[in-house]
């Protein structure tokens, strides 16, 4: 078994128009910038993929990463908890013009819906959002005297995530707080594509240090000097 892919372009080549793509990261921490930009490159060259539904905590920052996907008109819908950032122009302009759809999900509900999608749990009850406008239309049930809102699983056609270390089986370990949504998205997507900063041989990660077991991963590609989204935003980088 070898899940290594030779190039970043090849790693994102199969993503079709209309796909739901889960993208790891919380702000710049864990954002798989190289995979996202490879998707932009493909779109610029071929006009595809477009009409994407993107799942991420945020909706892009500055003119790079997810914001570049939005700028290029590749995104039909965002599923996120917090579509604001230090420079939210890309999403804000399209949203206020009615050119992009938003499904706003409380952050913990977003995480749990993704986890449920990966764990084969079609729905669950959470106290979060009970009595608020974000619970509108959702079934409510009482357990032990408290009210809970039913939420449904969230699954992706693809997940694009970043890990610090990966091996050819797709076993992964992350760097600091960069793991955030990545282990959940790896579970919840039909095809999980990972950019790793360091690709190591089998046995190169201690089994006890593996955070995401390779069973959840389909493709691993090395990007040994990844860009940090926050640094790109601060430098005013525009990925066109």
């Amino acid at each position, binding site marked *: 078994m070898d899940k290594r892919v030779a190039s970043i372009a090849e790693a994102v080549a199969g993503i079709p128009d209309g796909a739901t793509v889960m993208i790891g990261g*919380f*702000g*710049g*921490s*864990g954002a798989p910038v190289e995979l996202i930009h490879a998707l932009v490159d493909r779109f610029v060259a071929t006009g595809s993929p477009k009409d994407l539904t993107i799942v991420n*905590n945020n909706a892009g920052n500055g003119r790079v990463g997810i914001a570049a996907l939005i700028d290029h008109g590749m995104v039909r819908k965002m599923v996120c*908890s*917090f*579509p*604001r*950032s*230090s420079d*939210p122009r890309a*999403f*804000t302009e399209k*949203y*206020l013009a009615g050119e992009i759809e*938003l499904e*706003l*999900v*409380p*952050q*913990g*509900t*977003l*995480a*749990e819906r*993704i*986890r449920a999608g990966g764990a084969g749990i079609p729905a669950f009850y*959470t*106290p*979060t*959002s*009970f*009595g*608020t*406008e*974000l619970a509108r239309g959702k079934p409510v049930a009482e357990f032990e005297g408290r009210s809970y809102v039913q939420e449904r699983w969230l699954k992706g056609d693809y997940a694009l995530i970043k890990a610090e270390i990966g091996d050819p089986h797709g076993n992964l370990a*992350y*760097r*600091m*707080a*960069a*793991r*955030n*949504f*990545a*282990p*959940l998205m790896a579970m919840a997507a039909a095809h999980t594509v990972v950019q790793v900063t360091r690709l190591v041989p089998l046995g190169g990660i201690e089994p006890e240090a593996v*955070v995401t077991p390779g069973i959840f991963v389909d493709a691993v590609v090395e990007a040994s000097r990844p860009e*940090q*989204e*926050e*640094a790109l935003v601060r430098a005013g980088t525009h990925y066109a």
Partner: protein
Amino acid sequence: MNIKLSNAQIAWRAAQDIADGAYVNLGIGFPEMVAKFQPAGRAAVFHTENGVLGFGEAPPEGQEDWDLINAGKKAITLKPGASFFHHADSFAMVRGGHLDVAILGAFQVAETGDLANWSTGPKGVPAVGGAMDLVHGAKHVAVVIDHLTKDGKPKLVQRCTMPLTGVGCVTRVYTSLAVVDIEGGRFVLREKLPAISLVALQSMTGAQLHQDGVIADLLVPDL
């Protein structure tokens, strides 16, 4: 009457109630100041939604590591004993009753404990983040807040008129004038600035302030 506490002083007062070893989540912005005022000899463990327990102050400028941030996307540092975890575990800590205290900002707090702190209405781009999760599960959900809005309206009200974050979730409010508990669907006044009369305080509050025993003086150092 112009006498009121500064945000730093409100944060200081809230910090006095946090026990040694408590697991605490501080909301983005003003509530983050609470961490600065932990009493000597007490150390809380701070949680941030994006997957860190046991973080410390911001690093010096130029030494940021953008893989190590808090929920406000600000660079942080780690204290000995820190840990990392993914988002589902992070919110299990929140909803699962494992946090001792969550301290949040607010637009309005109702006497029922309802909280409005995420949306001012339908204009613009809505964003909720972790606010609706954080109000469920922590043993104490406290709010730090100016007693009045900028145009002089009470923030403590009978019923919230702004979009709700959570229903019946707030247990204590630290304002620029008073400390108020929420018990049985009522505001119970615990402390007030000595320079403000009960009548004046009530006139600046949108619901009845109840008394249950002694009302202590709200005494805070100059900061």
